């Protein structure tokens, strides 16, 4: 009985499921069916078992769980009839895989079926074994499969051959047993058996060198002959595809020849003729023919060198490249990529065509082609190639621009023959796709510009022009702002005019316009605006005619909500208004940036870049480096003959170059934080680096891209720490002077890190302030000096302060200086507290306080909690 003929229930179930309008309906039908099937399974129903399993398979395909049917597969496989076994094996392959324990139970049935007298049942068993066998099954059943390789029916032989592949992949030790029977398959005339035999031999060669040697020695000539016969065979309708007899067999044979020829000159030699024949005679107007050619090219490129054949192969790929079919072009690009290493010159000839492929509408072709072009670039062809790529950049898709820009930048940086060309190309890229340019790329550009002293004027003028055209490209704006800041005077005065340039008239106010546009543009980000502020500061002394206007712009930013900008604006404003005498030296042009240092840093090879202490010894090629005067000197405002701040240490060069506090360093350290960040602010302000600083800023990697968003945070730290102190008092004093508006308070201790004092408690009658100090060698312990001030007009007597802390803290209270607090702030009580934080660095301090005192003999009690301790205590 055929369970699948019409009117049976599998068909009905499929209909019912297809008739469902909603997913819920479908689930209901499936649930009902599954319930019925489970019931049948429980009743051990034999008649409908295979029909039920067929239904389960359909349900499985829809994505429902069907594991309860697994045992049914085994029962069906064990039953005697072919239709039952067929469904059983199909279920086994669909519902189970090699990892399930249940599979072990089927090994015995498989063994019996492999020895079955009915060859169709043997076929079923081989098929199941080939698709899902596990390593254990492979070991158990390998002898059966090996024997079946010589079975009289070709259908069994070919299945056994593919089964053997699975077996030797699962258990490579078994490979040698299969070498002899596999090679005998290569003499078959039946295509099915031959193709599976060839495949088996290919896999054997990959797994075992013994097999490779054996097959290479014994079979190469035979395979060459087989391929020759196949290539010359007359039309045979059974295997014909697009005029070619069995292209699949062609391809398998070529692949095996490739494995045999690789690394063996003799074998390679013996296949030269047939490869040449296939390469020249195969029709290339259909996919099948091209598939053979493609395989043939791969073989030619892999086997031992034969110059003539390789030329032929590359020419075939060239033809592929000009094919209209995208698939063909795709494989050609793929193959050329591999061929580049073998024969770069030959591939170069197809450069123009490859370049065309970069502009293809298909993304996968573009991607391949771009990668290939990237490999093909060298010193001689870089100019035309880059020109083409940049031209294409204008019209390319948005989602391709990122890739393309990255590749162009990389090519330009790697092969640029001269600086002016490099700058020109980068400017073009910035104008076209500035928003896609990575940070390290424009940092590098600035380093190059800085080093090309004869091109400063040219560059700044070119940037000025580019800015007029493409002011929407963020990175272009940044570079322009930086260059105008540094070389603005050259722009205005047309200094260093090259012959190729058109003269340009730019007034001082035009130059300031650019910076103003950049800073006021809505889309500009923090980095750009911060850089623009620095540029304005620099112009404030160079462009006297605009100084009022610059001051106004800076003043506007004093109210900026962005701390970084506000801080800069306030600092710069003080410099402009109060420190005329040092301003011009402060804003001098930056020293030339050290290219070698930058490249070393970029490659991560500069040892100092990673260490926290070795930065200052970097020497600069431009000669301005000299032992840097102590910071105190530098800031000693009474001395007008201050050493020019143009001296510079290598460490902070790049950080300062941008005038942006890119330093995550202020957040890194616990101890010594305050003094260090104090210095950082100064450095930033002055745009100089100083080797005398405590180093951590030299660890700053200019390439760290996330630094921008850290800037506000670190500047916040800076501000708060500024209010307090730094290492040396004179240093601190001058800084306060510079930044007036921040009330100083005397440094609590000279050596330890310093924390701002807090108002721990304040009521209408009483104020309690905490001052903190810490011994550097003992970071867990904080000494707090509590100061109580009476805000009322009554004197407090019997003053008692009590405090409680959580368990992770230990508190020790020293005796108070007095128990009487005079009225109206006419005196104070101080008391020292010592807190030991066992969770230092993880939890911050917290404290409950209670203050009891008497006013005119009447008891008063005040309570509170102190949560506002500075972090890091």
């Amino acid at each position: 009985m055929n369970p699948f003929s019409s009117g049976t229930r599998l068909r009905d179930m499929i209909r019912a499921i297809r008739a469902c309008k909603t997913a819920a309906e479908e689930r209901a039908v499936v649930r009902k069916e599954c319930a019925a099937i489970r019931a049948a399974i429980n009743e051990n129903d034999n008649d409908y078992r295979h029909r039920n399993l067929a239904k389960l398979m359909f349900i499985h395909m829809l994505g429902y769980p069907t594991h309860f049917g697994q045992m049914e597969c085994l029962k069906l496989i064990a039953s005697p009839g072919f239709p039952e076994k067929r469904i059983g094996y199909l279920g086994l392959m669909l519902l189970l895989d090699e990892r399930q324990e249940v599979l072990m139970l089927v090994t015995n049935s498989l063994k019996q079926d492999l020895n079955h007298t009915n060859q169709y049942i043997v076929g079923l068993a081989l098929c199941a074994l080939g698709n899902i066998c596990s390593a254990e099954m492979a070991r158990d059943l390998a002898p059966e499969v090996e024997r079946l390789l010589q079975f009289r029916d070709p259908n069994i032989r070919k299945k056994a051959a593919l089964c053997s592949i699975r077996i030797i992949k699962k258990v490579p030790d078994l490979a040698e047993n299969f070498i002899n029977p596999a090679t005998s398959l290569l003499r078959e005339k039946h295509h099915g058996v031959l193709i599976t035999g060839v495949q088996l031999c290919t896999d054997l060669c990959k797994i075992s060198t013994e097999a490779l040697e054996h097959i290479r020695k014994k079979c190469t000539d035979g395979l060459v002959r087989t391929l020759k016969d196949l290539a010359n065979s007359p039309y045979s309708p059974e295997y014909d595809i697009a005029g070619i007899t069995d292209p699949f067999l062609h391809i398998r044979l070529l692949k095996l020849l490739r494995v045999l020829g690789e690394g063996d000159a003799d074998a390679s030699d013996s296949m030269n003729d047939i490869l040449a024949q296939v390469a020249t005679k195969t029709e290339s107007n259909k996919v099948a023919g091209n598939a053979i050619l493609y395989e043939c090219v791969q073989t030619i490129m892999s086997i031992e060198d034969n110059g003539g054949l390789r030329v032929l192969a590359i020419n075939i790929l060239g033809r592929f490249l000009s094919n209209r079919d995208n698939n063909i072009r795709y494989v050609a690009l793929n193959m050329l990529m591999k061929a580049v290493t073998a024969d770069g010159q030959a591939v170069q000839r197809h450069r123009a065509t490859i370049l065309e492929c970069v502009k293809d509408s298909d993304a996968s072709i573009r991607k391949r082609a771009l990668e290939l072009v990237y490999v093909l670039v060298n010193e001689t062809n870089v100019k035309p190639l880059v020109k083409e790529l940049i031209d294409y950049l204008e019209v390319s898709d948005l989602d391709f621009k990122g890739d393309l820009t990255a590749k162009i930048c990389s090519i330009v940086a790697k092969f640029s023959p001269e600086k002016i060309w490099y700058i020109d190309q980068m400017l073009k890229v910035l104008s076209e796709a500035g928003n896609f340019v990575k940070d390290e790329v424009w940092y590098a550009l600035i380093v190059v510009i800085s080093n090309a002293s004869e091109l400063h004027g040219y560059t700044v003028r070119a940037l000025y022009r580019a800015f007029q055209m493409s002011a929407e490209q963020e990175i272009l704006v940044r570079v322009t702002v930086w260059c105008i800041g540094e070389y603005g005077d050259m722009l205005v005065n047309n200094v260093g005019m090259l012959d190729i340039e058109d003269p340009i008239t730019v007034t001082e106010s035009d130059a300031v316009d650019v910076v103003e546009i950049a800073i006021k543009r809505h889309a500009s980000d923090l980095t750009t605006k911060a850089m623009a502020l620095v540029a304005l500061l620099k112009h404030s002394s160079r462009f006297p005619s605009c100084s009022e206007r610059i001051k106004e712009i800076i003043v506007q930013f004093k109210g900026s909500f962005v701390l970084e900008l506000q801080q800069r604006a306030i600092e710069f404003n003080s410099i402009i208004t109060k420190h005329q005498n040092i301003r011009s030296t402060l804003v001098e042009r930056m020293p030339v940036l050290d290219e070698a240092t930058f490249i070393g840093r970029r490659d991560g090879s500069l040892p100092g870049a990673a260490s926290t202490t070795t930065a200052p010894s970097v020497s600069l090629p431009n000669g301005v480096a000299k032992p840097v005067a102590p910071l105190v000197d530098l800031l000693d405002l009474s001395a007008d003959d201050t050493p020019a701040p143009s001296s510079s240490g290598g460490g902070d060069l790049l950080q300062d170059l941008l005038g942006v506090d890119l330093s995550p360093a202020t957040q890194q350290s616990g101890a010594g934080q305050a003094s260090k960040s104090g210095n950082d602010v100064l450095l930033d302000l002055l745009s100089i680096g100083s080797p005398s600083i405590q180093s951590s800023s030299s660890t700053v990697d200019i390439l760290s891209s996330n630094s921008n968003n850290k800037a506000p945070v670190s500047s916040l730290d800076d501000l708060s720490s500024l209010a307090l102190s730094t290492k040396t008092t004179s240093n601190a004093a001058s800084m306060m002077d510079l930044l007036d508006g921040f009330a100083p308070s005397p440094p609590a201790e000279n050596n330890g890190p310093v924390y701002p004092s807090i108002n721990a408690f304040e009521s209408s009658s009483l104020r309690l302030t905490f001052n903190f100090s810490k011994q550097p060698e003992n970071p867990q312990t904080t000494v707090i000096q509590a100061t109580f001030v009476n805000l009322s007009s009554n004197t407090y007597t019997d003053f008692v302060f009590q405090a409680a802390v959580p368990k992770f803290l230990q508190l020790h209270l020293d005796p108070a200086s007095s128990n009487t607090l005079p009225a109206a702030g006419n005196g104070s009580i101080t008391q020292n507290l010592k807190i030991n934080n066992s969770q230092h660095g993880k939890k911050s301090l917290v404290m409950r306080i209670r203050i009891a005192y008497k006013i005119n003999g009447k008891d008063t009690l005040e309570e509170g909690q102190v949560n506002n301790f500075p972090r890091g205590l």
Partner: protein
Amino acid sequence: MIRFILLQNRQGKTRLAKYYVPLEDSEKHKVEYEVHRLVVNRDPKYTNFVEFRTHKIIYRRYAGLFFSLCVDITDNELAYLECIHLFVEILDHFFSNVCELDLVFNFHKVYLILDEFILAGELQETSKKAIIERMGELEKLE
């Protein structure tokens, strides 16, 4: 080697899924979903090859049905493209003018044909005639 074969319609319903490497059921569903997403919206002008994880998908569309093979990255793409076509021709011949409904109602036969065409992820038979004849013999045993 072929990792898996998928036959899906435009809505993403799987009509045939054959895995030659072991995968969890949940992983299979994920793969089927991802492959469908990859192929369904590709411009017909584009290549029939898409990279998929560490492998590549060779796919071909026939009316509303997508035939996708997942193969090794070094395999001959064009050969597998031709292979899909041969499979479709065999189906067409067997069902005489195959349509999606044939594949739905006779899914077990489609698996049977596939098992005669590909085994263990490798091509087993390249003659359409041989496969059709073999199927005839198997049908007689039912």
